[in-house]
């Protein structure tokens, strides 16, 4: 009890209250989110908790929550800014705790005793070896302050730190942000004043304190000394109170998120309690804004993932924002927290789905317009039926390879279901999937080739076609060439390849199409390529932007492809093909077309 009284001063009250509030608020959030997890998720946790994954998660927490390796990889200056604040602050706390332990022994010291150690124990400054800690703490404070300076500078000129645009913040974020910015300068002032009055101090607080002692009269020093500590405590208190409701909740949400993710919890087509961890782990850093083509090409400033997550978190998500996304996945590829942005966007749409009535899609029953007898199935897809050249080319390739093919939808077929899923009607989409799956089973195919990456993704992820190998036609052609079943001749045509979003970022297929193009001509890469490739703008995921806006995205992206000086633009998605064709000044072809053309 004496200890607590010993380390009590009125100015510590804002800090203590703020800290208590923070722990209670965060605790309540964590417990509620965990309690509301569905049973499958709880089972995953129970299975995962005593495995190696937990240790890997601990390592990842150190890497990501303390050192922020992924932000460093994205942009070293941003990485330093963040790590100097976060890791620097952590070290200040840790070293501060060691400092008090060294000088006071293992006795219990209340929290405020650690944090405001300099206030409570200025006399220690005269002790032996204490200077080591003073210098160390000053160095850490300087590192944190450099981070704060960078953060200020970033607000003024974000471009200097590699960001064209930064996030527009809500009120709670602004309060927390302002408080955070004041915390460390306030600490510097308070500690320097203490040094001015009592002596001691490291290279930073010592010099400033010494200077203050010279220029400021002693009675004035005594007068501002206490208020300076009040200000520091208040800044901390305000920050801690605002934290659970602001972007800074990410500090404490990312830690459980990393563990849960390692125990293989994932967001799903339906909203679940787990989503809370992902949504609140967003730090609103705004790294997702620059890659968004809706921003870069159309100037839309309210629909990027950072704003979508913010709106969803504060329950103000509008239908328009939820739907206004190409789901190209460029932001997801860049997110330093690794949030599953596309899945969260998808299940935000799912909330608004209509319940499919009994009779919906009854007409699908018994539909079978397939032809052919082969064990290799070819599902052209709806979009491919609008690009008959692709379909004809595939038929030519099949013929050249001597493959017997079962054509699933040459005379019309059922949609794969993904477009409906993308607009949140997951249950209705299931009826189409069942219809197609029954068809594949009925004809006992062992390989399923599709020309449409949209279909490919849903076949792979939702159809559960055990025993059937699902291939995109680029993979299939690549395999035919490797096995020597077709030998297209190579010429000197210069091609450039556009990575379709669903094929590249969606299914991770980057190399097969490039090998195929390499076999028939020369390939030049555009500026944005592979995981960083641009979207054609025609994505089925977006039902908000209009035709003109789609065209503008396509034009920007096509211009980049043409800048390679290619003769022909090649892609592997009928939808991208259509989008590029109307924006391009040179021919846009599917991979199947250029291969079929070069077969003897």
């Amino acid at each position, binding site marked *: 009890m004496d200890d607590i009284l010993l380390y009590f001063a009125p100015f510590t009250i804002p800090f203590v209250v703020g800290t208590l509030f923070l722990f209670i608020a965060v605790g309540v959030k964590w417990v509620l989110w965990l309690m509301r997890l569905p049973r499958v998720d709880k089972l995953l946790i129970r299975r995962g908790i005593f495995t190696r994954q937990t240790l890997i998660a601990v390592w990842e927490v150190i890497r990501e929550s303390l050192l922020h390796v992924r932000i460093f990889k994205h942009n070293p200056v941003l990485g330093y800014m963040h790590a100097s604040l976060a890791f620097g602050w952590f070290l200040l706390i840790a070293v501060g705790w060691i400092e008090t332990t060294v000088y006071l022994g293992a006795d219990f010291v209340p929290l405020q005793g650690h944090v405001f150690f300099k206030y409570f124990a200025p006399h220690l400054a005269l002790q032996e070896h204490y200077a080591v800690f003073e210098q160390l703490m000053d160095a850490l404070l300087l590192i944190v302050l450099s981070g704060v300076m960078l953060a200020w500078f970033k607000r003024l000129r974000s471009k200097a730190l590699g960001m064209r645009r930064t996030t527009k913040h809500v009120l709670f974020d602004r309060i927390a942000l302002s408080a955070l910015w004041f915390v460390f300068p306030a600490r510097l002032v308070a500690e320097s004043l203490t040094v001015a009055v009592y002596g001691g101090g490291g290279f930073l607080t010592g010099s400033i304190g010494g200077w203050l002692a010279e220029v400021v009269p002693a009675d004035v020093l005594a007068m501002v000394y206490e208020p300076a500590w009040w200000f520091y405590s208040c800044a901390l208190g305000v920050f801690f109170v605002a934290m659970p409701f602001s972007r800074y909740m990410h500090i404490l949400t990312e830690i459980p998120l990393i563990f849960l993710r390692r125990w293989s919890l994932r967001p799903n087509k339906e909203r679940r309690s787990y989503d809370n961890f992902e949504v609140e782990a967003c730090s609103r850093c705004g790294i997702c804004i620059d890659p968004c083509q809706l921003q870069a090409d159309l100037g839309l400033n309210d629909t990027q993932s950072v704003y979508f997550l913010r709106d969803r978190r504060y329950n103000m998500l509008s239908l328009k924002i939820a739907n206004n996304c190409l789901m190209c996945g460029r932001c997801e590829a860049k997110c330093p927290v690794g949030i599953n942005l596309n899945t969260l966007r998808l299940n935000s749409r799912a909330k608004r789905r209509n319940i499919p009535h009994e009779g919906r*899609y009854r007409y699908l029953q018994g539909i079978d317009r397939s032809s052919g007898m082969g064990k290799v199935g070819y599902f052209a897809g*709806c*979009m491919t039926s609008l690009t008959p050249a692709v379909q004809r080319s595939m038929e030519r390739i099949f013929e050249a390879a001597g493959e017997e093919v079962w054509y699933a939808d040459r005379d*019309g*077929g*059922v949609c794969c279901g993904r*477009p*409906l899923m993308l607009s949140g009607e997951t249950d209705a989409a299931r009826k189409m999937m069942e219809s197609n799956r029954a068809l594949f089973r009925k004809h006992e195919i062992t390989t399923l080739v599709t020309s449409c990456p949209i279909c490919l993704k849903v076949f792979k992820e939702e159809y559960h076609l055990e025993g059937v190998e699902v291939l995109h036609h680029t993979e299939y052609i690549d395999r035919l060439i490797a096995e020597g079943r077709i030998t297209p001749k190579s010429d000197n045509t210069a091609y450039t390849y556009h990575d379709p979003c669903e094929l590249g970022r969606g299914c991770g297929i980057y190399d097969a199409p490039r090998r195929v193009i390499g076999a028939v001509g020369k390939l030049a890469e555009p500026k944005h390529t592979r995981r960083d490739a641009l979207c054609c703008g025609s994505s089925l995921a977006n039902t908000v932007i209009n035709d003109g806006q789609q065209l503008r995205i396509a034009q920007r992206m096509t211009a980049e492809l043409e800048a390679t000086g290619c003769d022909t633009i090649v892609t592997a998605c009928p939808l991208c093909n259509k989008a590029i064709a109307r924006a391009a000044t040179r021919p846009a072809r599917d991979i199947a077309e250029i291969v079929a053309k070069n077969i003897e």
Partner: protein
Amino acid sequence: MRNINFGYGISRPRVINMDNNDLRKSNAIIAEMPELQACIGCGSCTASCTAGNLTDFNFRKLHTSVRRGEYKGAYEELSKCMLCGKCRLVCPRGINTRGLVMLIKRKLGDF
């Protein structure tokens, strides 16, 4: 070639009295998607329709009726749409037909 119902054919003679039709929902739909007024009724949407190829479903007829305030059965009929998006690609007026399907369903149905 299969017989495709392009939405042209001999319809039974009928009269729509626009004064008797409640155009509020129709107006709301057009207000949210003004580009719909650019429709020239070419029927490309219907001709390319995946669902229309498999069953009796005519999108051109449907959105034309809805614009005229004839909502009866439109929601149920629209539920046949698979939202595959071919109609949007072929529309010579660049109308966001997928958005339109969702919009009409939202205005008329139980979203």
